[in-house]
């Protein structure tokens, strides 16, 4: 088996020999197994494996990227030479400072589980069939789709400033979509579980949960339009947090493409909103000791009691802003890691009980126009709230708001939550949201 680090070092040296001022090389290999279900039976079992290399060469800030399949030396050396040729042609960028140097990183514990790496396709078949059975126990006529997958990969990052890192990762997930028909009426929902470590993976009962929720989605009604209080459940609220985090990406802010541009240090949300990005959570889905460029990671408070405290930086944007990198590089982009909201004092049930007339979103894709923050979206799975209770499912319903207005009108974050490794997903309540209905 090829020694990835040795190949990466040679490729990096080749890029420097060919004329790069800075260079970094990433090599990776991995494998995955997956099952796709159809009507509760196995449509296909798939195995994928592969390896690849990518080289970034930088000359006067001009960047040339070259990538190739395979983790062999010849491919990596050729990619290095090509990357330099491209960097020689690209326009210089005086805003580029340098790539990071070596540094000691935090101890995040292992990020790969050998038991997950050793899962077989037979194990995935068992996860799937167990959930088909549990869904059918709830409702024999349920149409079950979904599947399961597992993956393992290892990667190295070497740069011309001395960064030399190795990373290994595993993942396993199972998902179920349940569809129940009664004549022309359709109720559907889904559930899933995902983890890096087997001890965090709980695939049991997904089928039953999805089927129960699908049953509750039958007899959906159209509603009228108006201004309402909206409660976003654990599968819907992360889109609000995610919207804030992606708008806080410094590249978007610096290029004037973000609704959070110019708002650092300002109130952007109610005092109930605190968002912390924590890449160090043991066994978290996005946990790692270093970012994609090799900068050591640490927790970052993005929003504190409603005030925007930080953007997310890599070394390039940090250099332009005159700050330290926050360690959010993906080596080509910037991304949050494990986003943890601060929890409140009321349970989700108490939050709903406090709503006289509103809407509960079981799930919704609530991502706004990232330049303006304007949001207009469909309630994919939602329920009417009347007198503090969920009464009936809704269909053909939308809502619209500016995301910053929603954050200011957010008056509760629940104390209870759905948890995936490294992710806390609470329920939140937002007032004064314009709802459009098809009635």
């Amino acid at each position: 088996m090829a020694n990835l680090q040795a190949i990466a070092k040679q490729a990096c040296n080749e890029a420097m020999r060919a004329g790069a001022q800075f260079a970094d090389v990433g090599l990776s290999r991995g494998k995955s197994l997956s099952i796709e279900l159809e009507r509760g039976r196995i449509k296909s079992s798939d195995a994928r494996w592969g390896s690849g290399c990518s080289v970034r060469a930088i000359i006067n800030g001009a960047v040339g990227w070259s990538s190739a399949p395979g983790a062999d030396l010849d491919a990596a050396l050729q990619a290095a030479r090509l990357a330099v040729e491209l960097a020689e042609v690209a326009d210089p960028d005086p805003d580029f400072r340098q790539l990071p140097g070596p540094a000691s990183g935090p101890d995040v514990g292992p990020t790969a589980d050998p038991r997950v790496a050793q899962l077989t396709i037979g194990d995935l078949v068992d996860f799937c069939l167990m959930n088909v059975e549990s869904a059918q126990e709830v409702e024999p006529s349920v149409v079950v789709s979904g599947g399961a997958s597992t993956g393992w990969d290892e990667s190295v990052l070497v740069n011309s400033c001395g960064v030399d890192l190795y990373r290994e990762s595993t993942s396993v997930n199972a998902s179920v979509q349940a569809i129940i028909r009664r004549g022309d009426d359709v109720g559907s929902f889904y559930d899933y579980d995902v983890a890096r470590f087997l001890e965090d993976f709980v695939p049991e009962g997904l089928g039953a949960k999805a089927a129960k929720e699908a049953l509750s989605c039958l007899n959906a009604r159209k509603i009228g339009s108006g201004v309402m209080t909206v409660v976003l459940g654990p599968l819907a609220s992360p889109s609000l947090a995610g919207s804030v985090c992606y708008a806080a990406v410094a590249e978007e802010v610096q290029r004037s493409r973000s609704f959070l541009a110019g708002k650092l240090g300002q109130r952007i949300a109610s005092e109930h909103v605190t968002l912390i990005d924590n890449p160090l959570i043991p066994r978290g889905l996005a946990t790692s000791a270093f970012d994609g460029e090799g900068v050591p990671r640490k927790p970052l408070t993005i929003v504190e009691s409603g005030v925007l405290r930080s953007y997310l930086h890599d070394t390039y944007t940090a250099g332009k802003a005159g700050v330290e990198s926050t360690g959010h590089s993906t080596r080509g982009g910037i991304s949050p890691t494990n986003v943890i909201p601060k929890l409140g004092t009321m349970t989700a049930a108490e939050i709903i009980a406090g709503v006289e007339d509103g809407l509960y979103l079981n799930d919704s894709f609530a991502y706004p126009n990232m330049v303006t923050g304007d949001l207009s979206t469909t309630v994919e799975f939602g329920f009417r709230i009347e007198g503090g209770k969920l009464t009936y499912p809704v269909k053909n319903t939308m809502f619209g708001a500016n995301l910053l207005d929603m954050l200011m009108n957010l008056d509760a974050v629940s104390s209870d939550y759905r948890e995936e490794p490294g992710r806390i997903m609470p329920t939140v309540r937002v007032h004064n949201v314009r709802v459009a209905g098809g009635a």
Partner: protein
Amino acid sequence: MRDVVRWVCDEAKRRGAAFADARAGETVGSSILLQDGRADKLSQYIQRRLGVRVLLDGAWGFASSEDATRDGARQAVEAAIDMARASAKLPCDLTEVCDLPPIEDEERVAAEVDPRSVAFAEKMAAMRRLEETMAQVAAGKAVNTVASYSDSVAVTYVANTRGTLIFGEAPRVWMSAGLTVQDGGLRQRWGERKAARCGYELVRDTTPDEIAGEAARIAVSLLSTAPPPSGKMPVVFHPSVTGLFTHEAIGHNAEADLVLAGESIIEGKLGQRIASECVTIVDDSDRGTNWGAYKYDSEGTPARERMLIDKGILVGLMHSLTTAPRFGVEPTGSARAQDAGYRPIVRMSNTYIKPAEQPIELADMIRDIDVGLYVKGGQSGYVMCEKGQFTCRVGEGWMIRDGELAEHVRDVCVNGMTLETLHNIDLVGSDFTLEWPGMCGKNGQGMPNNCGGPHIRITELVVGGLAGV
């Protein structure tokens, strides 16, 4: 690679597969990103994959890697057989494979100008012209400009145990221009793109004003827009939205694999009226250099025009070799794989509503509307096929008041129930445009598609805006 895919099929047959196919391909590509005056990021890539699919003892298995050598193929066949054995525990019913006569053919899509022959300097200069145009038309209001270009040339081999062997070679070129403009505290963004299955001639034949100037004009106009309305109202679609709607609301629902999986709202409705009589919807791969065009699908089946809805009647679906026998029809050449490393699944190509034969224009559609909305600039959308609920995001619109276009609005999102909305199309225009290339996502695979049609009027749709009507 030709020998490898043939060997895979022979070996799979020898190992007892009732059917097997293999895809091998290599794609080389490059891209340029020019932002705020600098083309400081250039990239090139090579991608290579081999994918093997087998049907063994009534169950399917698939395996892929980047190793398209004989050794790699040996591993892939072995792994695909292992996978099929795992599926055999509870295989689904898609085990009949249409018995088409084998085809040996080549499809070489000729580029007038091979993008690999064009120097980066020329490509960068073209992107600079786009950016200069945006800055000029935006007249000092641009705070960020992005011009991007990408190209690829893909070589593919598809073979199956029936004897089919197809070689394909096709270039693709994509160019886009987008900007953010600002006036006081207001900021807006717009982009335009052009893409085709052709060579660099796309860039040479496109004037900067066509996409860059247009993007800047629209972005600046959005600075003086009002927030969109909220409520239910009649809506008229510009062709750019007609295409998005057709793709999302009915296109995905008419993919036969979703129908067979119980995930489509049109299950059981073949032969029934599911739309108004003025609606005829087609998916057509046989459209030259169009972004979604191709001659053979990823299973080696010849592609063609597929009539989905004919004057409101659901007459057909899009099929693969395994879905067609379940409906007693011929496959339609609709099985596509993102690349050789993925299993082919049923996908759209170029999907559109056919225009009316008699003249019907936008003015005809708005003159009797008291309060409604005209929307333009389809951006993205999605559909929950199992319940037939679609969402289309649109960049801009105009209120319709007393039969005329009124205030300009921004960021409109509309939602509807597919079967209701198809019946609520009461006017289809006589114009036609098919120029909204994009990438469609399904089951983790991205696929080039195009969509379009004429202007259409829908008597009522839910608009999820921020303002009262």
